[in-house]
């Protein structure tokens, strides 16, 4: 395979990892915990997209044969699926995170409660639409060709889209975080929730905002992966979720550009693993993660770790 092809493959996979890690990092920055239900929200985004473009449910599951009475173009379905995923993320916050915060319980318990929420979501999907895989037809892109030539290589349109949308979302997110009142509020809560509260920022609303945004990003990423690969069953978000975790630490916990940079690095590194060693591809990101944790625990773009005395 030629170099450009490898680069495009790596960057587009990396873009997905980056979107995934962005969702983790938004929640981590305000609450200091990891949302293990994030992978399930991503999976839901993929299924929402599939249904919204008019896909029919297979023969297994309670919703067998179900089909929405309308079919949206992919461009309409993707943001709507993102919104749907955002609503689910808000629900996860409501049941798995807020009760713990209200009781001032150990934040690490959220690892377990969010995992419980994830288990429920994944098995709910399985119950409703079955365990089979679904493919979003590339025809969903309308008139766009399946691939186009670029500097002598053939690039799949989906891959270019993945990369483009990830970069666009990152840019919008950064602009919003730096330029808007709510964005600054979110950063203030990430810095110190109590002080932010004293300054008149509604920190509960900011936490909700972080969850909503992370759900939207995960939903969009899910829809895009569903289009570029396929929806390989209710569990397919888990693998991405784990990679996202590695990416999160690699880039630096709580760092927005770090999440995207980490995603691209891991995606590229995996793409450069030779075919003979492809079985070891999944270990690459964790190997990286290990190295970074040992050499620079705060991650590539993270802030220095606070030390409590």
């Amino acid at each position, binding site marked *: 395979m030629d170099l450009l092809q490898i680069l495009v493959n790596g960057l587009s996979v990396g873009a997905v990892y980056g979107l995934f890690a962005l969702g983790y990092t938004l929640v981590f920055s305000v609450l*200091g*915990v*990891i949302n*293990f239900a994030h992978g399930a929200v991503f999976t839901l985004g993929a299924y929402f997209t599939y249904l919204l473009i008019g896909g029919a449910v297979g023969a297994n599951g309670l919703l067998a044969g179900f089909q929405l009475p309308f079919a949206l173009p992919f461009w309409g379905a993707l943001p709507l699926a993102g919104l749907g995923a955002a609503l689910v993320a808000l629900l996860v916050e409501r*049941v*798995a995170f807020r*009760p*713990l915060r209200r*009781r001032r*319980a*150990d934040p*690490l*318990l959220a*690892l*377990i*409660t969010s*995992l*419980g*929420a*994830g*288990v*429920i979501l994944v*098995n*709910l999907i*399985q*119950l409703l639409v079955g365990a089979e895989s679904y493919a979003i037809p590339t025809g969903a892109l309308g008139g766009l060709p399946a691939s186009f030539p670029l500097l002598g290589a053939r690039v799949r349109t989906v891959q270019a889209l993945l990369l483009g949308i990830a970069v666009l979302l990152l840019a919008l997110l950064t602009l919003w975080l730096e330029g808007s009142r709510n964005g600054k509020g979110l950063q203030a809560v990430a810095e110190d929730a109590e002080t932010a509260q004293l300054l008149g920022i509604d920190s509960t609303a900011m936490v909700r905002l972080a969850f909503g945004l992370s759900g939207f990003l995960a939903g969009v990423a899910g829809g895009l992966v569903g289009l570029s690969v396929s929806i390989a069953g209710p569990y397919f978000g*888990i693998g991405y979720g*784990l990679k996202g*975790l*590695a990416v*999160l*630490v690699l880039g630096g*916990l709580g760092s927005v550009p770090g999440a995207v940079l980490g995603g691209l690095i891991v995606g590229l590194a995996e793409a450069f693993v030779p075919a003979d060693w492809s*079985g*070891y591809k*999944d*270990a690459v990101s*964790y*190997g990286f*993660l*290990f190295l970074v*944790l*040992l050499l620079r*625990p705060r991650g590539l773009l993270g802030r220095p*770790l606070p030390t*409590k*005395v």
Partner: protein
Amino acid sequence: MDAALFEQMLLGALLALSVYLPLRCGQLSLATPGFYAVGGYVAALLSTGVPAFAGSGATSPLPALLAEMALGGALAGLIALAIGGPVLRLRGIYLAIATIALVEILRVLNLNLPFTGGAMGIFGIPQPFANAEGYVLFTLALLALACWLCQRLESLRLGRAMAAIRDDELAAACVGIDTPRTKLIAFVASAVLAGVTGALAAHFFNSWNARAGSFDASITTLAFVVFGGSRLWPGPVLGGLVLTALPELLRPVGDLRLILFGAVILLGPLFFPQGLVTAERLRWLAGLLDRGRQRGRQAPQTP
């Protein structure tokens, strides 16, 4: 109760103790399933490949099982010893993620190394016991030993040092506790216990593959400890027993089974943030037993 299910519950309790040991000095390590898988592979490879361990036909001698458990525990302990130094410098969520990464790296290795049988794993592991009841008795003894050691720890200098680190690592270091060494001991002990359990489990399950040590297992074993309570050893034991049995006991509800399991994991920490077993509840239980015993003694006196 079904002896095979009971055996799985006992194995769950042993794994929960393995997660509990590092937590006892405040270290959230999720590496247990990785070491469990390593121990299982040691037993599987030795008993299917080395004549001295294999025994005759489908049975294998008990001394061979003990030797495999020792070797499986030793290899897991050595891996823990090798990586423990740098890894245990990490704290909190960073340590948790690093240990998840370790489990995944071990899983990928187990899946791809030339001698571990790939995705299918290793089959036809010989049986040291004729039936599940044999395993249950043996595992009960092992669990009792592990519990006794955990109880002993409470009164040893080492155990006190671990508790001090959990409560405040800096203060512990200030009063002269060698915190890196204590944390390393806890981490290695956790790995050895997981490796020993894996060696036993490989025989019990009769086959072994890379799925034994996965991310799911990391979180499930952590759920054992959180659910049961992380401060006292009866907590993880109870959590391991109950949460291993739960998906099986929920089988009658069919497709809803894993959804209900998720609901238990979700709601458990909300209603019991300290876990089921706390010092207070143990005291209350002891008081209850005491009163019961007194009443029993008084009963014959009142005609």
